[in-house]
């Protein structure tokens, strides 16, 4: 299928049938149940993920790094990267490419481990983390340079040739997902000491593969079929069905106004979040990004602003009406 164009892919997925009743049994993949207009998504079944026990690095992480290594940052040597003037600071990860236990510009997914107590028993939950590919992504909407956008297929993409590394996307992301690498990108051609800070990197759901009709590398690699890929709409149904089966919970459907990534867990996400938070508080830098929490029901950054749109529409009307009245009055007087 690697030679497929996007159009062919969409046609075939449509032809393959909405196969709406595609059933998830024993980790059977959901892929290709999409229609031409469907947004693609993923579903993590946390009852299946065991963090690849016995492996040094979880397989989804390993294959992600292998698949994307040609797109990882290629900055100038560390000693040539300037501080972000006037501050004595720069975000340079090229000496820490090996890190697989957090998000970095060289590591776009990782697996968190949370120790929780549920139904009176201690439990270990493994949670693969990366960009959630939100329905209304604040990162893309609020990038001042339009360097990010949500593709029609669902993945949220960063234009590495346009990104200046301001990291606003990371600040407005509820999970602080994008990671910054200094010494690379457009800012190096302008005034690297004074303006810009690098390029932001994150998971793009293996967009090139998705366009060819393939599944993301992490999905293919998972030995326990804990990651499913397919039509977001179908996966949402599967997520809730699975949650009902296990008396569990769904994460990612309501959070940030909806995302293309669903998690199903038998443990409430409030407990998982509390465990992650506690873990983070014990880190050397508790405020460090790259270790996302799992806040249940977290709101979208744009909710307040979007609530003002009615006022935005009313303002020109009010202006026109007031002007009409004022003009009539002055003309009558004149």
């Amino acid at each position: 299928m690697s030679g497929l164009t996007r159009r062919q892919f969409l046609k075939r997925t449509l032809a393959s049938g909405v196969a709406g009743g595609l059933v998830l049994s024993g980790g059977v993949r959901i892929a290709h149940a999409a229609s031409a207009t469907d947004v693609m998504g993923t579903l993590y079944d946390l009852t299946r993920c065991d963090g690849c026990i016995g492996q040094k690095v979880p397989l989804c992480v390993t294959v992600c790094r292998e698949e994307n290594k040609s797109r990882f940052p290629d900055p100038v040597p560390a000693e040539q990267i300037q501080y972000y003037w006037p501050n004595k600071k720069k975000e340079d990860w090229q000496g820490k490419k090996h890190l697989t236990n957090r998000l970095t510009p060289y590591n776009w997914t990782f697996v968190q481990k949370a120790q929780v107590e549920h139904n009176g028993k201690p439990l270990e939950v493994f949670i693969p983390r990366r960009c959630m590919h939100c329905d209304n992504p604040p990162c893309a909407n609020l990038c001042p340079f339009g360097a990010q956008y949500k593709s029609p297929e669902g993945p949220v993409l960063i234009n590495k040739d346009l990104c200046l590394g301001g990291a606003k996307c990371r600040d407005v992301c509820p999970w602080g997902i994008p990671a910054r690498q200094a010494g690379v990108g457009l800012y190096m051609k302008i005034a690297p000491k004074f303006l810009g800070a690098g390029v932001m990197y994150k998971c793009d759901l293996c967009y090139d593969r998705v366009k060819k009709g393939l599944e993301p590398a992490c999905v293919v690699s998972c030995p326990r079929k804990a990651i499913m890929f397919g039509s977001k709409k179908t996966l949402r149904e599967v997520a809730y069905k699975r949650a009902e089966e296990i008396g569990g919970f769904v994460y990612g459907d309501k959070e940030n106004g909806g995302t293309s990534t669903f998690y199903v867990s038998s443990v409430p996400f409030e407990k998982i979040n509390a465990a992650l938070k506690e873990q983070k508080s014990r880190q050397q830098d508790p405020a460090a990004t790259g270790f996302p929490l799992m806040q249940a029901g977290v709101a979208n950054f744009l909710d307040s602003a979007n609530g003002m749109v009615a006022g935005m529409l009313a303002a020109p009307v009010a202006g026109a009406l007031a002007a009409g009245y004022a003009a009539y009055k002055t003309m009558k007087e004149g």
Partner: protein
Amino acid sequence: MGEKILPEINKVQRHGLSVLFVHWTMALSTMVLIFSGFGQMPMYRRYGLTALPGLGWSADYSVTLIIHYIAAMLFLLAVFYHIVYHLIRKDFDILPRRGDMKESLAIMKSIIFGGKEPPCDKYLAEQRLAYAFIAFLVFAISVTGVIKVMKNLPSFNFSGNLLIWVNDVHTLASMLLVFGILAHLAAFVFRVNRPLIAGMFTGKVDLDYCKHRHCKWYDRLLLKESCKDRE
């Protein structure tokens, strides 16, 4: 209140309340838009503005975004008020005319090197040109601003290329507007332009100034008054 000669106080009524309202609403909202708009770029924390007393909030995108939206409402209200008010009154004195570029150069030449200015209407030729420049930028900023508001809504998903254009035009036009505002204020470096400042606060300018500099307008006002007297 319409424009008219006020001989008893040696003034000329140059602007009515509507013009003053639009001017100052635009001025205030534009200042706030520029500050909050630049605040949408990740620069206030980096360059230390947040370290200044009382400005710690300036790097909080959620605060500056709300401020930007409120100021944008005021801005749009003033823009629509301005357009509708002058369209209804068929009041187009400030629109550029043929020969304005040449006349504008002649006025600047006389300001800098001395000599007689060409007779001016209610607005100087450079004011009409400046208006066109600023109006074009206001139009570009408003259109791209509206698209930017739409893209933040969950129901809209624009293409990556459109977003680049919209963002870049919005930013570039805003920067040009800053330049336009600075040039507007720089006009008052020249003493000869200063009597106009009072006009933007009180609506009135000195009668002598009007006779001397805006003689075409003054003649029109005289004609209007004599017609009124005959009625």
